[in-house]
């Protein structure tokens, strides 16, 4: 049963990591223009910056 002591925190941590990633992508407005983003992936645009 000691396996549970680290497996459960691991599972929860990974899940929380996914959730954090999702919230980050939402906050940086990555879902605003899905149509445009799909076209941008095809072009060889130089990264802005």
């Amino acid at each position: 049963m000691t396996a549970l002591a680290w497996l459960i925190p691991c599972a929860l941590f990974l899940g929380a990591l996914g959730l954090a990633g999702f919230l980050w992508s939402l906050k940086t407005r990555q879902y605003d223009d899905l149509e445009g983003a799909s076209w941008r992936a095809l072009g060889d645009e130089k990264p802005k910056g």
Partner: protein
Amino acid sequence: MGETLVLGDDLRRVSNTDLAPATCNETVNLAVDGMHCGACMRTVEDTLGALPGVSLARVNLSTRRALVAIDANRITSERLIEALAKRGYTAVELRDMERHTFSSSHDDLLRRLGVAGFAAMNIMLLSVSVWSGTNTDMDSSVQTLFHWLSALIALPAVAYAGQPFFGSALKALKHRHLNMDVPISLGVILATGMSIYQTLRGSEQIYFDAAITLLAFLLLGRLLDEQMRAKATSAAGNLLGLKSVSASVIHQDGTVARVPVKAIEPGMRVIATIGERIPADGRVVQGDSEIDQSLITGESIPHKVQCGDQVYAGTINLGQSLIIEVTRRDANSLLSEIAQLMSAAEQNRGLYVRLADKAAQLYAPAVHSLGLSTFVGWLAMGHPWQDALTAAIAVLIITCPCALALAVPAVQVAAASRLFSKGIILKAADGLERLAEADTVVFDKTGTLTIGQPRLANGDAVSDETLASAASLAAASRHPYARAVVAAAEARQLSIPLLDSVQEVSGSGLLRVTADVEQRLGSAGWCGITTKLADTPALWFKPHTGNAVALQFKDEIRSDGAAVVAALDSAGFRVELLSGDATAEVARLARQAGIASYFGEQRPEQKISHLERLKAQGRKVLMVGDGLNDAPALAAAHASLSPAHATDIAQTASDAIFQGSRLAPVIEAIAVAQGARRLALQNFALAIAYNIVFVPLAMAGLVTPLIAAIAMSASSITVTANAVRLRTQNLKVSA
């Protein structure tokens, strides 16, 4: 990939660093018309980015908008718009408008869905372990640990993700009626509350998984609905922006100044140059030209105006400069009037009660009284109150409308995807329900029953040779008539020689002069013709030698128009034609399409009152139209459809948009809507059948968490599978 998308950060970076102190940074929000693909997006961004003073240009293709960071001391938004106009894109600045694509409620739902999804997956992981553990060797201390972990995840997740439902349920209760959110909220709150109580007691009646999974599915349905709505709203915002924002006013002393449209007063004289939108309703006092009135009428055939004619705000001057005397203030213009009529009509539609809410009004009281009688029954039989409450809550959980809440959305998603594959885009879910109830179909004429594009009408009288040489001139122009000539030549599979040295003379026609040839294609006067043809619009082609030939144009009925009308007729629908055009022309087309009941010369408010009359007769009207003048009627009708080329405002007002040059999608849309309604009712029946089996078990206190989870998923899968049948079913319409 993150860095290319973070516009807000880029703008901040631009404003904070490496720019001289003399700069004045601003962001301009442009609505750009005519962007369709990645190539357009690139052109617009490159065009804007190349201008001096522009530090960043970023297009949002979903909303057809561009966000541009500029140095206001070096460039103005007018220059940006001009640069885009040269590349063939009409753009307008949107001031005081929300900058982000979707409304904040969309983001909010997405965030809550993310949280609910995370919680549901983790709690399921723990629950499945417990369920399988009860058959094997899991000891009770581990079980308790898992229950506590589930509670820890579920509590904040339910509190956060459930808010939209709790809020809506509270609002409904305050107004003393029941919607679907009331049983949902009650079920979720009680399931969570009792699970906590049972966790404390160390019992096995834990329903966290059921509560949070239900929330996640419901949020998904709501998000899809919101997405459709947000897209429609942003299209409406772009349209309002299409009104001119400033105008060139001629003052008494002859000087010309740019003045904001809001400051224009009746009696002022304004100039509308070629390609410019007319800034206000008024009368032409100097010049003659052609006007693109498609914003108002949906008709792409240019409309001739001369001194004394009425022109409307928002239409585009295609020919020479016009001087216009303003007759109405901005707030009274036709465009504003139509916007007002529309919002009034839409308020009526807001009163429509959706199928799911109708079901909830019957379902919720039944469920709640079942729960109550279980509680009272157990007490009466002498059980302790805790056991009575547990049984009562089990009833509420088993009846919690998981299947019921999925019954309608699942069908709607299936219907939307079937319609989409046929080129019909459904905008709002309740539109589908209203569409299914229609028993009367009212068509607009131009652009709806007809194609809305001019076609060569007297092709038989024009030889191949003449047509080919006319088309070679016409290929140089984007004028609708010129394009019709090219299309006619292409339809006959003629080879169109590519010519250089073709000049477009604004307002007159096309000219080609070389050392030994002179050819003209254009208006009668321009080709030296004095005879006047009947009312049909025409172009004349004057070859180098020989007589000029007239090319006449007509807007023709869609190829399957008559067949669709006949099909609707035989299915028992009443079909009418309602048009703003002259009655004689309307009658001609009505005969061609086989429509017995037609009305011409209808103004927007007359169209509405006609629909009101039909409504008073107890008819549910489906309006099919495309023009701005149809928009109020589209909003007032029980349900509405627009072709894809319709003006934005008409598309905003209608429930669905169909693509292509055929009219058949109208029948398909009605058929799918009726099929969806049938399946939704079947799904309700299935959900109720499942309740009939499981509610007695729950009342007897025999429902364990495992049984609840299996029953819930089984019923949800059944209704979803039933909904998916819609995609392949053979459908028929009937009024």
